[in-house]
């Protein structure tokens, strides 16, 4: 037992901050009055913590969650680069803290995943809803077959001017927003159509069936990804929009911002 205790002591010695990935009030109270800054990373600030990083998605894999929390804390300047941070999180159980991770705050190269949600043109809630729709679509597919989809979110005016309709717009004169209860079914049906979905900053679905025509020079995405990803990279480089792509071939959901992939989620694990 002493060996274990020593190991734990070694892990938590000389740290600059604690990241608590839980919004459980009793857990929070246990660490609240420690001699190091406590940063709560959760979907909601239920405990009323002073230092709080909002988690837009329930990341299931620990690495993704810690990466997001660290990036958020760095962006909000709650921790500095080079700080040693201990993360208390859940690897298997959803409720209980079962994992302690010691990590340097600048361990990961910054991918901009926090920026994707917080500093993008569209609202964080809209980005989250679109990603959830894409994940849902990736999980179920269309009648069992894998489907692909491309959502361009935000800066809709400019995106509309850099694209043309492939056919009549089914969303004309409709006022559907992502996050409305019926939308998942609707988008699933329309994902059979070719072309991109255009969604405004506020979450209104402006159009389906759009053929994007951005300038594709200088877009650098991993080789092997198809035309859909290329179009997503190019449109986000050309406008202030972000793009969420569901790949038809490997079933992954990828988010693009400013021409770069910033987030990759496997719907099957989600």
């Amino acid at each position: 037992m002493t060996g274990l205790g020593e190991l734990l002591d070694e892990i938590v010695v000389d740290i600059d901050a604690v990241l608590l990935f839980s919004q459980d009030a009793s857990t929070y109270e246990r660490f609240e009055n420690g001699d190091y800054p406590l940063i709560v990373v959760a979907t909601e600030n239920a405990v009323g913590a002073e230092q709080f990083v909002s988690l837009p998605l329930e990341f299931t894999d620990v690495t993704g969650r810690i990466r997001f929390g660290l990036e958020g804390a760095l962006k909000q300047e709650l921790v500095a680069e080079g700080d040693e941070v201990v993360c208390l999180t859940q690897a298997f159980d959803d409720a209980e803290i079962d994992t302690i991770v010691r990590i340097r705050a600048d361990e990961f190269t910054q991918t901009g995943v926090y920026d994707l949600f917080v500093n993008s043109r569209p609202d964080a809630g809209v980005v989250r809803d679109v990603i959830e729709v894409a994940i849902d679509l990736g999980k179920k597919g269309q009648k069992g077959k894998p489907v692909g989809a491309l959502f361009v979110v935000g800066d809709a005016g400019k995106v509309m001017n850099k694209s043309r309709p492939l056919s009549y717009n089914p969303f004309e004169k409709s006022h559907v927003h992502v996050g409305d209860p019926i939308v998942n079914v609707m988008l699933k049906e329309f994902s059979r159509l070719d072309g991109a979905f255009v969604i405004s900053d506020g979450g209104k679905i402006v159009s389906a069936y759009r053929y994007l025509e951005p300038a594709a020079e200088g877009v650098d995405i991993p080789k092997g990804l198809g035309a859909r990803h290329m179009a997503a990279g190019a449109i986000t480089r050309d406008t202030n929009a972000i793009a969420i792509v569901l790949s038809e071939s490997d079933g992954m959901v990828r988010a693009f911002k400013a021409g770069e992939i910033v987030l990759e989620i496997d719907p099957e694990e989600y």
Partner: protein
Amino acid sequence: MPSGWIDTVRTVVSEETVFVLAVAILVLGLFVAYLAWRWTHALLERTGISTAVEGTSFERTAQRFGTSTVGIIAQLVAIFVYTLAIILAFNVAQVFDADVFWSRVTNFLPRLFIALLAIIAGLLAAEKGQLLVQERLQAIKLPEVALVPTLVRYSIYYIAGLIALAQLGVATAALLVLLGAYAFGLVFLGGLAFKDLLAAAAAGMYILLNEPYSIGDEVRLDESRGVVQEVDVFVTRVESDGEEYIVPNQQVLRSGIVRIVE
């Protein structure tokens, strides 16, 4: 009071029998009152009133006295029924020869009952209303907003008090005028304050339904020119390099919007 049949009874039977009859009515009244108490209790429990009022301050006060809101209402009903029985018995026995007095009491009794009910209902409704408004306003993080639920609560108190007093026959004309002035102020000032928002929403309805211009169109509005980025009920957002104009919808209708087609 239906005194006709009482007189008939008295002519048919003797004095002693009348007295026995009065006592019987008293006993029967006691029984009926008990039944009424049971029945009200069961009814209020079954309709979920007792769970609805749980936790309100009136319920807490009632519980401190060893009863509950449902209990108080049921007791009121029982007392009402039993008082009626007593009056009936007295009338039959003619212990007092004071018909006028009793007829006034019987007229007054239901009103007192309704007044009491109005006060209890008012106390409960006020608290519930306050809670409801409070929950609605929870998203607005502004300390002054806390005033609104309190206002709702006292408004309901006032109206309940007014109903109760009117039932008892107290002159409430002055209080009614005050209520009218309050309601008028609320509607008038509210209308004045929300004038622009209402106009924008009315215009927004037309724009959203008919979509004379949509997201992505290039437009000119007064001096500003740009691309429409977002249209909602109240405003239209038009963007041109580095500048975003947030135009209230009624202005779009009033001054007209130029859609650039070429």
